[in-house]
């Protein structure tokens, strides 16, 4: 199944659009998103709520609600174009086999009446990754070990586990088929501080051990820095900045990214916090020009036109007229 290609990009997305039909009009949840992610790296997608980051995850995995109006663009996984696959082929050959997902509030998405070992082994059996049940449970055991759940918890039901343990089980479910890409949607936001730090440690260890590629979707910028190699900032359905973690956390370029970083409270470093006045535009009828212009401290005449996403430095993309 797996092909090796000379292109080091594992995931390449070109012009992805995902628009939803609603009673009040079309919601442009993801609008023309383009980026590429190399194998073994972790991409952090940050942005405020409603900026389209979860829709981006759903778009990548083609887990779409019924009211989709537009779903277009190109998604390449390891060089294979995925958009041309039928839904059935996508389900059978891609989803959970080559890429999987830990959904938001995953710990509450487990089936309450099925033992966790059965839930973790299920994807292997459904996708016929293994030939026997014994093999499936052996692989499930491996996955439990990887995420740090004691093996005697395997026969328990979800309600017998704590939030942190349930989150690990959801993670084991995503990892058990040995996918190339795992999308984590807010994996720690419902957890306590110490549990959160624990899960982050587990993710780091997995990344080091098996070199899986993660996309981490979160609004928690401080925690995201624990895992990030690359960072993507989304605003009002669009990608406004894409660069490596070093540049993003220390010196981002887009005025929105700067505002976002400036508003993160820090415990150790003393700084004056900023905030971004106003609120994001409605995705029903986003402004014609730059979508951030209305809240931007540096706007000028040119901002009435939409800026293109430009590569200002090697691997550093910014969608802003200030950086051309």
């Amino acid at each position, binding site marked *: 199944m797996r092909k090796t290609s000379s292109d080091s990009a594992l995931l390449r997305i070109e012009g992805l659009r995902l628009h939803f039909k609603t009673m009040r009009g079309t919601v442009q949840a993801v609008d023309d998103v383009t980026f590429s992610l190399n194998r073994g790296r*972790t991409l952090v997608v940050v942005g*405020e*709520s409603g900026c389209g980051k979860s829709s981006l995850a759903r778009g990548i995995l083609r887990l779409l609600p019924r009211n989709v109006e537009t779903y277009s663009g190109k998604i390449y996984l390891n060089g294979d174009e995925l958009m041309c696959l039928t839904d059935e082929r996508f389900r059978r050959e891609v989803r959970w086999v080559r890429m999987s997902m830990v959904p938001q509030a995953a710990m509450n998405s487990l089936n309450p009446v099925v033992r966790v070992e059965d839930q973790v082994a299920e994807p292997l059996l459904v996708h016929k990754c293994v030939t026997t049940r014994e093999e499936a449970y052996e692989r499930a055991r491996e996955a439990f070990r990887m995420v740090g759940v004691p093996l005697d918890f395997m026969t328990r039901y979800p309600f017998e586990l*704590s939030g*942190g343990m349930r989150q690990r089980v959801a993670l084991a479910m995503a990892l058990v088929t040995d996918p190339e890409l795992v999308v984590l949607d807010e994996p720690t936001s419902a957890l*306590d*501080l*110490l*549990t*959160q*730090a*624990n899960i*982050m*440690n587990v993710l*780091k*260890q997995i990344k080091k051990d098996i070199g899986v590629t993660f996309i981490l979707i979160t*609004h928690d*910028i*401080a*925690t*995201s*820095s*624990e*895992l*990030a*190699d690359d960072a993507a900032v989304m605003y009002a359905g669009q990608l406004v900045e894409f660069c490596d*973690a*070093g540049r*993003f*956390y*220390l010196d981002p370029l887009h005025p929105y990214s700067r*505002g*976002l*970083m400036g*508003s*993160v*409270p*820090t*415990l*150790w*470093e003393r700084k004056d*916090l*900023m*905030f*971004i*006045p106003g*609120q994001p535009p409605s995705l029903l009828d986003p402004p014609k020009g730059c979508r951030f212009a209305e809240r931007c401290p540096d706007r000028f005449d040119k901002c009435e036109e939409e800026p293109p996403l430009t590569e200002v430095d090697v691997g550093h993309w910014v969608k802003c007229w200030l950086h051309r």
Partner: protein
Amino acid sequence: MQNEAMVSVEEQQNDVLLSVKDLRTWFELRRYGFVRVGHVRALDGVSFDLKPGEAVAVVGESGCGKSTLAKTILGLEPPTAGEVRFDGRNLGKPTRELLRWYRARVGYVQQDPYGALPPFMSVKRILEEPLIINGVKDRHERQRRIYEALTQLKLTPVEDFLNKYPHMLSGGQQQRVVIARAKILEPKLIVADEPVSMLDASVRVEILQLLRELQREYELAVIYITHDLSTVRYFSERIFVMYGGKIIEQAQMEDLLADPKHPYTEALLRAIPDPHPKNAETMREVPPGEPPSLLNPPLGCRFHPRCSKMIEGLCDQTEPPEVDLGDQHIVGCWLYTDQQS
């Protein structure tokens, strides 16, 4: 002699707005609806004093009892034992009049602003109702106070907001209406239970700063309850750390950061990252295990099963005393009993 003692007690009381003594709130746990099987000791022996105009933060993980503390102080949960005194009056078994008196002097800012605002009332009605209930009869006076409150919370121009309903506002604006409602009766104390945890990072700071400004301007006492330690510094000087239904450490924020005493506080501080690309290179030290069950809390210190500095035969047997280390730094840990100041 006796008189003198009386006077000093009086004086002390004048200096303390809210006094909480050995407060316990237990929830009965029943099976089949009537067989009592035990108690969840959500709050188990909390004491502190709050001066007028003082801001404190209460931090802790979920299930440590911080919200129960808020609710007990507000009189929404009856305490099982202990007492809450506000302005010298005991709120133990409040009469209707006492509750009304108390609630006009205490504001509550809830966690979820959308859930806290009645969806069928306009902003104007939401803000007017407490004034009507508390006998502000003059319509112009009510109008004036509504305008004043909305202006302070930067919901301007006020006319644009008066006739809006909660669903027409953004999360940040909703939370500002909640704060406006909490302060419209000019209370002396505001209890804010996770006021910003439902909001986006870019708005959080704005709300905290507004709350802080109000606190300074009106000499409001504020209890800020949060799980997010990194926001505390931007809000208050004094901090209480809760674990397993108790306050295990209280200190000035700067002292706590520079020199945390309780092993739990230390672990908590170590687990919080500042955003920096270097974080990805190292693992974080995290104590093993999970917070204790409050149904059957461990004997002795409640943190001892996870503590790396546990003293056998002591920490797992006897509850640690509160050790006053001076400079308002109090810690409940056996490690410091010889440093009592």
